[in-house]
């Protein structure tokens, strides 16, 4: 009897303790929850809310239901910009990853001044966007630029001078090229660190088995960095899907989704309702992509 009483008290005490511990836990995560709610969840919900309104700057928003969404989905320019975005994201992501991989493989070998070269490669990534954008515009200027001077005046590669950066037919290529050049160092840095963590013993064993260089890459290097590269591709795709400044500052007429949003919602008269609706659509598209990608490629 006495024993039973004691065990009952013990259980109760442990329940109290558990409850206290749980409360302490909540107390400790409270600041994070508050911050995340205020800085992430609140803006998302507020944006969602705005997308159902005709927003008026002077106050008195008008509820319009799905009108903003229907406007956007019915806009031919919107679908054109989705297409442009897909092209931009696809080629820049593939480009940055492949160039990053090749450079990382090269930099993983021993050679003099390796440290210096390794850090110099980071230059495009760390240089301020606005400065390099202007340099690129000077280089590709159709009348005075060095590129046209060499390719048209000297090498006669083109039949006429072309404004590569600004012409609607060519600007997307320049934007992709710029995106790859500017951002490959990030992929390179990540892949290089992945390469350095591969066990050297694997390569030695492969050598004993008589593997070629390609086989070593195919059966050791690639599987070892597969998930790393998968994550890099995912990150780059997300970043470039939302990329505004590099594209807009360089060309202005490559209308990827963020540029379309800016022109639609913020030129001249602000149209916050439409802007919010585009942001929601963009968010849904991106989440859809991430879900499929994570399941198929990263195999979570």
């Amino acid at each position, binding site marked *: 009897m006495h024993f039973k009483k004691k065990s009952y008290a013990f259980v109760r005490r442990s329940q109290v303790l558990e409850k206290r511990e749980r409360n302490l836990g*909540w107390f400790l995560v409270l600041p994070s*929850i*508050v911050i995340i*709610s*205020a800085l992430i*969840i*609140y803006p998302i*919900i*507020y944006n969602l809310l705005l997308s159902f309104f005709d927003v008026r*700057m*002077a106050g008195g928003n008008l509820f319009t239901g799905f009108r903003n969404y229907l406007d956007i989905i019915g806009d031919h320019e919107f679908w054109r910009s989705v297409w442009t975005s897909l092209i931009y994201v696809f080629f820049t992501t593939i480009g940055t990853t492949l160039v990053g991989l090749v450079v990382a493989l090269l930099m993983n070998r021993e050679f003099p001044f390796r440290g210096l070269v390794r850090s110099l490669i980071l230059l495009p990534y760390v240089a301020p966007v606005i400065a390099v954008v202007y340099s690129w515009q*000077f280089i590709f*200027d*159709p*009348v*005075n*630029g*060095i590129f046209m*001077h060499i390719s048209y005046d000297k090498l006669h590669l083109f039949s*006429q*001078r*072309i*404004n*590569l*950066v*600004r*012409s*609607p037919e060519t600007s997307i290529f320049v934007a992709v090229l710029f995106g790859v050049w500017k951002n490959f160092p990030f992929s390179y840095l990540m892949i290089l660190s992945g390469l350095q963590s591969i066990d050297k013993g694997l390569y030695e064993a492969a050598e004993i088995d008589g593997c070629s260089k390609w086989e070593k890459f195919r059966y050791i290097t690639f599987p070892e960095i597969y998930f790393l590269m998968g994550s890099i591709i995912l990150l780059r795709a997300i970043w470039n899907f939302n990329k505004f400044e590099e594209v807009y500052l360089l060309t*202005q*007429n490559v209308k990827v989704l963020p540029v379309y949003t800016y*022109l639609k919602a*913020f*030129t*001249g*008269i*602000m149209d916050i309702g439409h802007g919010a609706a585009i942001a929601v659509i963009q968010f849904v598209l991106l989440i859809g992509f991430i879900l499929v990608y994570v399941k198929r490629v990263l195999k979570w």
Partner: protein
Amino acid sequence: MKKSFLVVLITLLLLSTAVFVSAGGQQGEKGGASVSKGPVQLEFWTRETQSDRMATIQMLIDTYTAMNPDVSIKLVPVDENDMALNMRAAVAAGKIPSIIEIDAEIAVALGTEGILDTEAADIMLNKVGKDRFFKGSLRLFESKDKGVYYAVPYHGMIQGIWYRADWFEKAGLEPPTTWEAVAKAAEYFNNPQKNTYGILVGTMETESYDEQCFTPIAMSNNAGLFDKDGNLIFNSPEMKEALEYYARLAKTSPPGPQTWRARDYYLQGKMAMFFYSTYIMDDLAILEVAKGSLTSDNFKDLKGAEFDPDLVKNTKVVTTISHKKDAGFGAVVSMAVPKQSDPAVRDAALDFLTYLYSPNAYITFLHMAVGGMMPVIEGVADTDRFLNDPKGVYSRYGKEKIMEIVDGLNNIESFGLVEGNRIEAASVIYSKKIIPQMIYKVTQEGMDVDDAMNWAESAMKELIK
């Protein structure tokens, strides 16, 4: 466990929303109702974003605040293309500037939305003397209601076609005063093989410059956006003719979408004509200034990088283009006082503006951009004080030429003014850059002229409905 987590999350969410909403509300009230005591703080938004111009304005501010120690003035540079957007954002946030320097289209657009203080403008006009303002520039700021003005004109510029008179003479061509003369010369001098071009017209979809070039061409063909009763008459045979003509000129522009920055090609001797405002006067007149604005400094090996000291002598300007009638284009920039709830701020703003209109301050301000900033009140342009600018530019052109240019301010045409009636919807179309987008579609994307005009018409209808 899951349930309690959800409850906490939702409570926090609601809490944070409530906090934000109330904070937003308070902010709005702050901009709205409080009456300041003690020193008054003004915020002056200027479109002169260049550092040397800002330094001059800061000097004027320092002089004023030295005389009025209980007023402090914060100078904020805002790019002219972003002015309307930033202003609306400021109103939404309840942080309204005290004085803004804006052009007529933006003034009308903001004024129509009820953001500007027309009473303050009236007080200012009377202080300076309504009769002293050039009528042509004053009417640009008039609202639908006669005698009510959205802002007070401060300085103006005239746009014209600047051309190489020596090339024209050598080729035996007429000065570019008519549609035929301009097109003929543009096609004659356009030689992309030799990297020389006919005429620069704006073709970039995001730049107001396109509309500034296009307006006089459309106007000279009697093509407007609205009739005097405010009905949209944009899609007319006259407008189509003007757009086709513009596209023809654009074929002789340097490759790809271009904007005013391409004037450098003219300074390098690679272009025969360009649409530009009187702002170019000092670039042309002063060797050092022109050198400073040449982007080709980076490419010294390339031909044409050397500056031609005879350029000013060989450059002439026509300020009107004629076809069915004469039309000119210019822009007048004003000082506007947004509506304030704090009378102290408004009074201080008006007092500072009064100082800016005093002869010394006014001329100091105008001399910041010699050529680009012409006086819009009588009794300034013909004074020695004005004509003796620090760089000696006006003396090179002579008093007569300067007076002729200043007189041009009376003949400015605008899509928003039809037979004396203010059509406010034109400002909305201007600020949404419909015409630049239409021009871009035709000249760069190769869209059919009719299709582009139909597109523009439906975009305009959407905006003004």
